[in-house]
């Protein structure tokens, strides 16, 4: 009896130990290492300006995530002024609270190259977002503008159709911004493969809606049979669409543009027929990519400037036909969410 009892106690003890042991194993070392690497780290976003949909969307998603892992998230607003952006970056690098990760939305290929080099030398990881630059950043997250241009051109060709005039007009941004230059290159690549399609005019809008309207008016005046216009940004494509409306060519000219996929700026205008197709950036996913690479870099232990990663966001030309309730994100909803806190 006693033996049996002892054996039973031993068995119970064994069983208990067996149960306890996995609890020890479940103490995953991941979260502790993660918290230790990330806690208190500073992330700063310097976009071209804080006043437009893309920047506000990025800031929303980044802030949510960075603050969740115990970091500090800050933004600077250069308000489209290149010098002000340079000043903001310089101040950030030399301040006591130097950011550990600097996310830069470059205004052109070269302006911030030296500053970004300085930032890396000081130990700050540099992320380029949306606009590429002539600088080996730790990571680039954004659109492959060449590919984006190709998608626009394909959408324009499809929008024109085989029995159209096959005349396409471009409203470029400017001749300095990489997004404009690469977009143009992409469009021309596709059009080279379709020699029957011709670009009849390619004025610049300088990203201004009134200028876009005026040049589009002239373009339509000169070529009333244009079947499609590609405007390089939804921020000024409102001007091109006004010109089409004024020329009473709504429905006859297929307007293609690109944007951040914000509801009022893109989806609403696809729905009401203002735009024929919009190549939209999936902003939440793009922000997610940034968050992932930030978390990777901060845990990697590698010095800033060691590796150079390109993370291109998946792009797609959306038309009215394939518009879905979740095709766009809603800036108003994000602002309401932020205000509610």
């Amino acid at each position, binding site marked *: 009896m006693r033996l049996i009892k002892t054996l039973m106690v031993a068995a119970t003890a064994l069983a208990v130990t067996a149960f306890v042991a996995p609890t020890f194993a479940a103490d995953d070392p991941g979260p502790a290492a993660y918290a230790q690497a990330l806690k208190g780290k500073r992330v700063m976003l310097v976009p071209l300006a804080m*006043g437009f949909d893309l920047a506000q969307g990025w800031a929303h998603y980044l802030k949510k995530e960075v603050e969740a892992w115990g970091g500090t998230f800050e933004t600077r607003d250069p308000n489209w002024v290149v010098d002000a952006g340079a000043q903001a970056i310089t101040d950030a690098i030399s301040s006591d609270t130097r950011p550990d990760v600097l996310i830069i939305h470059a205004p052109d290929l070269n302006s911030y190259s030296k500053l970004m080099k300085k930032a890396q030398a000081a130990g700050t990881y540099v992320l380029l977002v949306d606009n590429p630059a002539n600088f080996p950043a730790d990571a680039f997250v954004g659109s492959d503008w060449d590919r984006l241009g190709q998608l626009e051109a394909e959408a324009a060709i499809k929008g024109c159709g085989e029995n159209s005039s096959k005349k396409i007009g471009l409203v470029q941004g400017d001749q300095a911004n990489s997004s404009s230059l690469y977009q143009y290159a992409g469009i021309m690549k596709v059009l080279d493969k379709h020699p029957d399609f011709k670009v009849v005019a390619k*004025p610049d809008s300088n990203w*201004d809606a*009134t200028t876009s*309207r005026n040049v589009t*008016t002239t373009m339509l*005046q000169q070529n009333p049979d244009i079947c499609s216009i590609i405007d390089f940004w939804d*921020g000024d494509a409102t001007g091109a669409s*006004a010109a089409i409306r*004024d020329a009473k060519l709504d429905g006859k000219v297929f307007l293609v543009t690109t944007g951040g996929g914000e509801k009022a700026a893109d989806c609403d205008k696809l729905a009401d027929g203002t735009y024929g197709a919009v190549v939209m950036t999936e902003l939440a996913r793009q922000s997610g990519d940034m968050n992932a690479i930030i978390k990777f870099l901060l845990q990697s232990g590698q010095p800033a400037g060691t590796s150079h990663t390109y993370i291109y966001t998946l792009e797609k030309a959306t038309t009215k036909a394939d518009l879905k309730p979740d095709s766009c994100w809603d800036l108003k909803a994000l602002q309401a969410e932020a205000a509610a806190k």
Partner: protein
Amino acid sequence: MNAIGWLNLRSLNQEGIVFAIAVVLFVAAAIGLPGFIDANNLVAIVRSVSVLGILALGMAVVIIGRGIDLSAVAIMAMSVAWYLQLLNTGTSDGLAFAYVLAGVLAIGLLNGFLVAYADVPAIFVTLATGSFVFGYVRSQLITQDAVPVPQGHWVELLGGLRFLDIPIEVFVFAGLAFLLFLFLRYTKWGRYIYFAGDNPVAARNIGVPVRPMLVLRYVLSAFVALIAGLLTAASLHSINTRIVNSTLLYDIVLVAVIGGIGLSGGRGGVRNVLVGAALIGILLNAMTIIDIPLLYQNLIKAAILLGAIIVDGIINPRDEQTAQQGDI
């Protein structure tokens, strides 16, 4: 010698030169560029400079009175952006418009008061108030660079308005030009502006209310800017405050100065604005048809401004008797 109709070069003023250049350009474009002379294209030319021309009318009144208003573009964009923001957040139309009118009046009064009574040079006052208006409205009153016009609002309907297939802003430009012409030419206060601009001290000595009139001019300019802003929003169905960073302000000064309104004050009128606007309109339209890149367009525009200022300096030299430190 020149009595038989030969052009007397010495008698040719800047307005004449610019008018001649505009005519030459027009004829050259009409012959060389297909579709230029088309009625619709001509309407498009006038329309493309309407808002610019309206702003230049406001600027002209200020410059004739020996001042300058560098806050015009900020007032234009920010007042309308605030108005639309108020509408979008549910303020009633009447109340929103009253707020904006009061705001525009206040900035005009502030500009005028600081120039007239505090004796601060206009160029500094308006540069500062322009930055203030932009910064305050952008940071405190609106949430985004671009503010859309609410669907079905009268501003949107205004943009679609046409008479004889001509957009409404062309008529507003013409109407304002005519009103301003009457004001400057036939009213006592209109004539006073020339006196005050030509020689402020003498004007004051003969009893012209120089200071209150200075204030009036800046208020006028501010209201003209509001009208220009409303027309811009009407056409584009939104207003983008980024326009404050653009070269629009310099284009306004360009139109006024190139038409022959001397920066030293006391000279010029509505006709000069129309001539300046015509030249710029024809030039921009022709350059767009030829497909000249924007960089070169700006270069050409800037070269013409520089030329006009040099010619202005030679033809309308500073009046050494009345010029003073701080004049522009």
